[in-house]
């Protein structure tokens, strides 16, 4: 374990042991298929309800396993750390949560995730499957010359909102359209103060000097778009909010869900401090914060840093956001 400071046993056992912990901590709400590494809502499948599945590499907790439960996901497939899960998992989860109304795959836009989910959808022949691919990261600029924008913070908001719609009994088509609407109205940008260490790698993915930060990172501990000198929170907030605002673009009079997310190693006190900066920038831009979310929800192991996600909302989206949800990671009204 030299050089790596983690509460783990063998690096290869991290994912399965953490899943065991989830099962032990939430027996009331979750059922965990340890062999296939799938976290199920305890009462899945829900008759008549569209099944919602997501999944991805581990290391982003609480996403996705922590978002399984009433009003959100029916199942989450956990891959190795930062490695998308395999089609077998997605297929098994798809079959298990299908109650006849079909299944929506919520996929973050990464080559691996997209390919594996595609293979799973091809293979799950008996179930009607639609997919939505989230791609809200404005740090990825030239979509034509890249793998396209990454799916980041919007994924959390989407799982909540679409989960509420599925709970209402909407059809697969409607749920998928809503998912697309959410993705289309959301944008994100992230930064890192430190690297993280993939357990199997045993050392930090990149080195950052004491006075440097990475801006335009994703959620896999990868270096960002730019390495810049460390800056005050006020300046960092502007570096994140400005490109987000300019991209959709968000306009004066818009209402948004403002989401300041920690990358895993940043404490809440700093996230609230960042939220203060973000709220001021939005206020100056004439944008109303309809709802907010502050905390570590889509993370990169123990990386220090944060991301800002804005989701432009109308009354429908706010209503679905406010609807009851009962998952280990997000809970209200239930």
């Amino acid at each position, binding site marked *: 374990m030299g050089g790596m400071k983690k509460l783990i046993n063998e690096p290869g056992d991290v994912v399965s042991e953490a899943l065991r912990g989830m099962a032990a901590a939430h027996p009331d709400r979750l059922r965990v298929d340890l062999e296939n590494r799938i976290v199920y809502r305890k009462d899945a499948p829900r008759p008549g309800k569209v099944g919602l599945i997501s999944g991805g590499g581990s290391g982003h907790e609480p996403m996705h396993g922590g978002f399984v439960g009433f009003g959100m996901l029916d199942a989450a497939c956990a891959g190795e750390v930062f490695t998308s899960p395999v089609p077998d998992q997605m297929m098994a989860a798809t079959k298990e949560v299908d109650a006849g109304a079909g299944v929506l795959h919520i996929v973050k836009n990464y080559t691996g995730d997209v390919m594996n989910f595609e293979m799973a959808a091809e293979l799950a022949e008996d179930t009607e499957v639609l997919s939505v691919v989230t791609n809200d990261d404005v740090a990825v600029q030239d979509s034509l010359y890249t793998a396209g924008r990454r799916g980041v913070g919007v994924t959390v908001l989407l799982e909540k909102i679409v989960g509420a719609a599925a709970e209402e009994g909407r059809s697969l088509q409607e749920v998928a359209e809503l998912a697309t609407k959410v993705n289309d109205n959301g944008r994100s940008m992230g930064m890192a103060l430190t690297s993280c260490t993939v357990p*199997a790698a045993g050392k930090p993915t990149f080195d950052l000097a004491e006075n440097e930060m990475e801006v335009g990172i994703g959620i896999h501990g990868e270096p960002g778009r730019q390495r810049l000198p460390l800056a005050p929170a006020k300046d960092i907030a502007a570096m994140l909010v400005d490109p987000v605002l300019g991209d959709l673009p968000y306009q004066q009079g818009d209402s948004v869900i403002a989401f300041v997310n920690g990358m895993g190693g940043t404490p809440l006190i700093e996230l609230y401090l960042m939220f203060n900066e973000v709220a001021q920038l939005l206020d100056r831009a004439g944008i109303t914060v309809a709802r907010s979310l502050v905390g570590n929800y889509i993370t990169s192991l123990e990386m220090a840093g944060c991301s800002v996600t804005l989701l432009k909302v109308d009354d429908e989206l706010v209503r679905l956001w406010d609807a009851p949800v009962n998952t280990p990671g997000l809970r209200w009204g239930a």
Partner: protein
Amino acid sequence: MGVENFVDWLRDAARTLHDNAAYLTELDSAIGDADHGANMDRGFAAIVALLDESTFDSVDELMKKAGMTLVSKVGGASGPLYGTFFLRFGTALAGAELTPATIGEAFKAGVGGILARGKPELGDKTMYDAWAPALEAYDAAVSGGSGLKEALEAAAEAAAKGRDATVPLVARKGRASYLGERSAGHQDPGATSTTLLLESAARTLA
């Protein structure tokens, strides 16, 4: 030339990838997410476990099963890509005699699988930058009358050149593409593992 040789290849490849896991992960740390070594090692360890507990009558069956194992055990980008390579390689060999030519056809089908899944283009700084010149060199060698070993050696050499050529490139596919210009100056991990696989083939298949 038969199943045993392909079993040898897979076992030798597993060893090589295991020995190079930290190196591959280090390459992936620079422009990706630091898991390529662990991914390849996990996938090929599962293939070795499969070889330990099952016997195979035909190369096509073996390679298909190896491909399915990679698809089922690796995940990430490399799982579907390498998995599809082996699946299509095996499928193409079904019922065929094992000759440099039929193996070349299978090779082509496998690379076609990678193209279909990942839609890489030459110069995108992916494993395809090693696969494409390797396939071309193989075909050229076989057309020129070379035997399997020579052809595979030519393929491995071409792969290595392709791998080296990824260094200056700006990535346009996969995770490295998010880095934009910052991806230049780093060797692509997938092109590196592809080269290791083909070097292993040249050592063991003949």
